């Protein structure tokens, strides 16, 4: 019989028992919930805080339409918002860029200037809910900071997050067409800015979901995540930012695939690794610097285009794993993921999945309910060991910038995508409806109609933006872009004040990105189709 293995190819025995725990110290490995090494959770009593933050990834069309989406979900009991940009926005291109024409607002919200952020947050209780941003960090922080200021809300009370992926974004996910040093600087500067101005906001959200959902396994996911966290932390320390001023606001947005216990073990191992790393490698002293917040998205890659109703079951299984692992914020990838960004029906099912688990199952009545399980503890130890070995392996392979530029990271992603396809093809990874228990297409009708509706590009944004550019104070915009360029040239300065200033006078994200690229010696427009902004 073939060896049983977890999805990360960890050999697994048929059963675990006391013999697997010989020499195992619960004091060293577990501790109490909310105490070092935080294996059992970042907080002592998660239920007292009302459970995890429930949110569904949203954003479609223009900012006003996305604002309606938020309000719909909030009216159904969602406890935070999570907004993602369309592909131009994620790539720092304005909607009137020739490449953006057919992509405006179809896979997220189109955002490029302060007016957009005003619409995006319209009527939302910015000081009452958490605002999570799957957007380019420096620009999203500037947008939120400016709108809060206009509404008389102190940025200091804002809660939420913005994700950081400076190492990997060119190779997997959304390419910014920016050199490594600039990407890292935007991360460092936005985190440093928030540690002073928005101290409750998690500006350092390491996103291992996005990098891993092409097919990385859980060990690859977390090891690449830790390598990036360590790189950003070192860069912040080199900038003179004190570890305990930003480390309490580090969070990790992890993936959750279908391998139930492995994903739980991964999260527990991640908390433990993080605590030891922050204490021993970076000298953090504040207890909050050691307890990392874990947010999660359930895996879009695990969902299928065939029999989309099955995806609801997958989402529920994954969300239950996350609840048992003590995740502090969850987004359930929706059943129509294989076809489109979420429909309202699918959004609601995703949210209801979380509500049913939280309110009906009692899964989170106690902290870390699986703590002490022979299997879960053995798997947690094994994940911890393998993740850390791989972190050291990657760090020994070279400097991150060099690994990026030489295509070393890209090969990791490439090989993982191919492996995933191979495993689906040969049945190593079983997928109901895809490689087992398939049905003929004519029988596969349930929920297919919802999944197949298309979203038209929001092309009216193009005309709107052209008109917006006309009505700005051209002199002030130009001066602010010159100032941003000067700030970018001074490698020791923080870019955020200049980005905030430019945002306030009406500069667009595309213009600001162009100026930053120029200061780093690359073309302002990666596609060579626009005039330089300054």
């Amino acid at each position, binding site marked *: 019989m073939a060896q049983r293995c977890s999805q990360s190819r960890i050999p697994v025995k048929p059963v675990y028992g006391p013999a697997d725990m010989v020499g195992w110290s619960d004091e060293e490995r577990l501790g109490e919930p909310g105490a070092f090494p935080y294996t059992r959770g970042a907080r002592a009593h998660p239920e007292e805080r009302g459970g995890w933050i429930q949110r569904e990834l949203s954003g479609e069309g223009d900012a006003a339409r996305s604002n309606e989406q938020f309000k719909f979900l909030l009216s159904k009991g969602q406890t935070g918002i999570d907004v993602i940009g369309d592909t131009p926005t994620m*790539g720092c291109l304005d909607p009137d860029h020739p490449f*953006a024409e*057919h*992509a405006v607002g179809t896979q997220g919200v189109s955002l490029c200037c302060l007016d957009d952020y005003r619409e995006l947050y319209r009527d939302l209780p910015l000081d009452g809910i958490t605002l999570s941003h799957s957007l380019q960090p420096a620009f999203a922080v500037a947008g939120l900071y400016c709108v809060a200021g206009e509404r008389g809300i102190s940025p200091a009370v804002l809660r939420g997050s913005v994700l950081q992926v400076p190492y990997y974004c060119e190779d*997997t996910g959304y390419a910014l067409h920016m050199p490594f040093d600039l990407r890292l600087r935007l991360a460092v500067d936005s985190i440093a800015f928030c540690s002073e101005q928005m101290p409750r906001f998690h500006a350092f959200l390491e996103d291992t979901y996005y990098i891993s959902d092409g097919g990385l396994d859980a060990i690859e996911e977390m090891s690449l995540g830790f390598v990036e966290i360590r790189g950003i932390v070192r860069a912040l320390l080199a900038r003179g930012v004190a570890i305990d001023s930003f480390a309490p606001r580090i969070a990790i947005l992890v993936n959750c695939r279908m391998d139930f216990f492995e994903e739980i073990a991964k999260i527990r191992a991640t908390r433990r690794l993080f605590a030891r790393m922050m204490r021993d490698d970076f000298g953090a002293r504040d207890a909050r610097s050691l307890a990392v917040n874990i947010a999660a998205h359930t895996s879009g890659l695990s969902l299928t*285009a065939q029999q989309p109703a099955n995806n609801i079951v997958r989402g529920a299984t994954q969300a239950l794993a996350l609840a048992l692992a003590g995740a502090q914020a969850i987004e359930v990838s929706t059943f129509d993921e294989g076809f489109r960004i979420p429909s309202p029906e699918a959004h609601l099912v995703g949210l209801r999945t979380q509500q049913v688990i939280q309110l009906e199952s009692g899964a989170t009545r106690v902290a870390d309910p699986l703590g002490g399980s022979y299997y879960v503890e053995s798997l947690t130890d094994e994940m911890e060991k393998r993740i850390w070995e791989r972190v050291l392996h990657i760090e020994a392979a070279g400097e991150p910038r060099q690994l990026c530029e030489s295509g070393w990271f890209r090969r990791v992603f490439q090989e993982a995508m*191919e492996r995933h*396809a191979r495993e689906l093809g040969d049945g190593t990874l079983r997928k109901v409806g895809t490689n087992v228990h398939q049905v003929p297409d004519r029988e596969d009708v349930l929920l297919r109609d919802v999944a197949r509706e*298309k979203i038209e590009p929001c092309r009216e944004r193009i005309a709107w933006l052209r008109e917006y550019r006309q009505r700005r104070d051209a002199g002030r915009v130009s001066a602010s872009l010159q100032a941003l360029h000067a700030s970018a040239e001074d490698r020791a300065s923080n870019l955020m004040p200049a980005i905030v200033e430019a945002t306030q006078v009406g500069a667009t994200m595309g213009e600001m990105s162009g100026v930053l690229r120029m200061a780093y010696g690359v073309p302002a427009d*990666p596609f060579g189709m626009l005039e330089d902004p300054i």
Partner: protein
Amino acid sequence: MRPIRVLIGILGLDQHEVGATVVARALRDAGMEVVYLGRFNLPADIVKAAVEEGADVIGLSCHSWEYLHYLDTLLGLLREQELDVPIVVGGSVVTAEDAREIQDKGVAAAFGPTADSAEIVATVERLAGRD
């Protein structure tokens, strides 16, 4: 006989590369030469590369609806330049209705998310006249 040459590209700002990568691997494993253009192409880029590389077949991978808007331009450019290179479209977002619609326009073959690699390989071989 030289191997079949397939150009694989993604249009517009569609960022997902999983499908393109996997199909490129399957075609290479079947003995074909793959010219991998990757992301961020407009129709003119695809046509230019097809000419320069002497592609037998053009493969377009899509995980967004952008391809639907670009196809007319792409097919028009091919016709203008009298290039008889068949286009194969594949991607998670391609529904059966989309497949019919784009084949009516002149796309040689279209694959949705349920297609398997063997089927794609066989189709490309057929379109390149090597079946």
